[in-house]
């Protein structure tokens, strides 16, 4: 049993088989010996909860786990529900998945964001992700040039 503690003091107990999905934690486990609680200072409790939820569902299937294993289609459906999140949570999750080094979660989140971006104008992307247009007048000029055609 491994215990993780989030930046805001929440603790989460995980089976080792789930904990090793988080590569960063796996490395810490191999280095530390007697530590009972592993601090995760970069990640808030509610985000860590979501990360753990994902890892529990995606834990590598051993012979024992096979009985409870979800089919690929079920897992995909679960993933589609999982990513129905507001952009702020998505951002925090991406940062957490990166810090905790969970490749499959990072892939899923990056694909989700890419799908939100495809085909959209820059202004739309700013609105979706609540980003401010912070270009200097010089940069603005360059952007304008890149984004226009002078038809002959």
């Amino acid at each position, binding site marked *: 049993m491994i215990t993780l503690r989030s930046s805001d003091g929440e603790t989460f107990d995980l089976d080792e088989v789930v904990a090793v999905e988080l590569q960063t934690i796996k490395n810490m486990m191999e280095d530390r010996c007697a530590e009972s609680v592993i601090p995760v200072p970069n990640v808030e409790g509610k985000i860590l909860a979501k990360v753990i939820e994902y890892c529990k569902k995606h834990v590598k299937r051993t012979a024992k786990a096979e009985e409870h294993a979800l089919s690929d289609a079920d897992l995909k459906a679960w993933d589609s529900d999982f990513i129905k999140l507001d952009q702020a949570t998505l*951002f925090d999750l991406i940062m957490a998945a990166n810090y905790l080094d969970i490749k499959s979660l990072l892939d899923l989140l990056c694909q989700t964001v890419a799908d939100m971006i495809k085909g959209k104008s820059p*202004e739309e992307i700013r609105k979706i992700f609540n980003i401010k247009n912070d270009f200097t007048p010089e940069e603005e000029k360059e952007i304008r040039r890149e984004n*226009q055609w002078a038809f*002959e």
Partner: protein
Amino acid sequence: MAGWSQLPKDLLLLIAQRLNTHFDLLSLRSVCSSWHAFIPYSLHPLPSRFPILPTNGTSWGLYLSRRRILHLRLPESHCQSTNSSWLIKVEEDVPDMAHLVNPLSTFQFRHFPPNFPKNFAFSRFRVSELGQEYVLQYMNHRPSGEADEGSLHKGKVTFSCTSNGDDFVMLTIHVSGKLAMFRHGNKKLTLIDDMSSPCDDLIFFNGEFYAVDNTGRTVVVAIGSPPVLSLVADSVSGGNKKSLVESNGELLMVDTYFDHVIHGIMERAVRFKVFKLDQIRRVWVEIENLGDQILFLGEKSTFSAVASEFCGCAGNCIYYTNSFFFPCGQEDDAYTGIGIFNLENGNMGPLSSFPDYAKVIWPPPAWVYTDNIRGV
């Protein structure tokens, strides 16, 4: 509280890798200052126009021009009641200058409406790339007229290059009807002798080159020395000209039936049949209904669109080019040589008879140049 503009570079690049069109990357670059710094200008390492032959810098030569077929739409917040679109084909020639070409033919648009902006800012819109078209042209030829006078020949060209542009392959249909290949570093085109009937069409699909001959027999061309052709589907009986088109992630073949075939000059298309590939049994299977899809069979390229996102009119139809529509002695205009075929009822006719389908091509919709949309 950090926001998306503070996303670290390597994470932003992970996301950018999953965007596979030039315009999506451009949009991403145009969002904020840090993203602009992190994201490269272009996926495509090769410019829109670059020399193919010869390799020793003499005064003549061939260029390959790349044109993009784009679907422009208003961003969602601006949407009016109709699902208005503009379908264009753009050739980005010398830096900052572009040509607007009819998406299906080679007709160039020169006479824009009076208020049309001199510098057209496309970042105001949703831009989707529906396909690419490649044309071989003689060096020092600047595209000017309706027909591609500078073109080597009328054959279709398909092209593929590695992600860093250090190797490329071009496949084309030679005047003899044979397949011809050109690889980076070659001195001339290599003819491929293996197809028994003349080649009708080529396509680069799912990372491979496909070629179909006049009988419908379809092969995959594996690039090598020598190139190897593997059978993908047997011949079909029936029509006169086969075309390959990608639709909804699948490879389709369209068989065009002509009457009045006089040496390919006065051919009138009278019917179309559409086939889907059964990869396991290696046959083309006819499909009766395209559902929400619209197929476009242009002179030099084929592509498809989803009707509900495209023009708001019904799918299950084909835009096609037909020289039969060229009027005698009249000036070519935007709709010349283009027709619509409805798979549902077999109705067909020149584009001018189908205003809902014609208006996505020309004239440019008013929302494209009225000023109520802010720039980048």
